[in-house]
């Protein structure tokens, strides 16, 4: 399986009836719409590997770009809608960068057509929920294992994202005190 994962902004967006209302939440850039949709093409042999890779790539994305802790998400599989273009990702992580793709849309009208199609096919495009705690646990585990990319990402001056402080607190809480 090789879904093209798009990480949404709100889990309830696709419950809205109006395509333009959905686009205003899910595909916003500045005061307008984002017409270069960022997505991640993840390869996996089975559902377990897909879930693990989804958590990995979203947590890496969040650690690189989000100033606040990642919310839980319900990723969408956008494969087959438009031809994805492999573009160099700008995360702090090699895996996420390697998976990064963009879908280029021609206009706002093109975006709205895409939104309408996704809404019609939502039941088969919506993937399994990923809770916020799974992403915090993943980050915590990578730090515990001293993953060099995570260590670098959380070492000044790279650690501009305040939410990584939460990961440190969670890790501390999960680590039993040393018996000296």
């Amino acid at each position: 399986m090789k879904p093209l994962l798009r990480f949404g902004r709100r889990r309830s967006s696709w419950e809205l009836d109006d395509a333009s209302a959905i686009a205003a939440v899910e595909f916003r850039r500045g005061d307008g719409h984002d017409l270069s949709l960022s997505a991640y093409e993840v390869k996996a042999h089975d559902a377990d590997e897909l879930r693990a890779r989804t958590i990995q790539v979203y947590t890496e994305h969040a650690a690189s770009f989000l100033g606040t802790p990642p919310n839980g998400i319900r990723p969408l599989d956008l494969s087959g809608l438009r031809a994805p273009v492999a573009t160099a990702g700008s995360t702090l992580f090699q895996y996420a960068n390697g998976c990064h793709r963009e879908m280029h849309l021609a206009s706002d009208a093109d975006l709205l057509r895409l939104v309408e199609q996704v809404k019609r096919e939502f039941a088969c495009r919506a993937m399994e929920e990923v809770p916020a705690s799974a992403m915090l646990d993943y980050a915590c585990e990578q730090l515990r294992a001293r993953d060099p990319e995570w260590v670098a990402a959380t070492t000044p001056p790279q650690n501009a994202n305040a939410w990584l402080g939460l990961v440190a607190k969670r890790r501390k809480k999960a680590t039993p005190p040393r018996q000296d």
Partner: protein
Amino acid sequence: MTESASAVEFASAFTPMESESSSTIGATIYDWAQAFQRAVVCMPSVPRSLVRISEAKLTQLASERPHSLLALIEKNALGAADLTFAAEIAGTIDDWTRVVPLLTRLLLHASPVVREGAVYGLVRHADRVPAVRATIRSAIAGLLGVEGSPGVRAAADDALVLLDDQL
């Protein structure tokens, strides 16, 4: 909240302090004049145009003029697509006496994306102000009892796990 909030009352939230210039909020005065005009140049009895505002500007407001952001939310000046992000970002403002009641009210908003944004805002706020975690937990648990949107329910379930982790 109603659509007929007084324009005069709303305008007062945007009156710059004497020490402020347009550059304080990082936007051209033209941008703000436009937003201001869309928001307030109407009679109270006429449906008001909604302010469109980017997340970058909402974040900047939260940091530099937090009470202006709270006023935008309180006066119902934003559409649902902006309000959901405004609610989340408002959670980073330290004034819990205004933030918690305001976001708790938004848990009852008609739009599910706004209710979801309010959940995220409350969780952000609990991270910053530990003293209100129990109050916020109670509000979100209460939402779960009545919430009909699967997306908002998932967000609220998620929030309770994070809050319980912190309590």
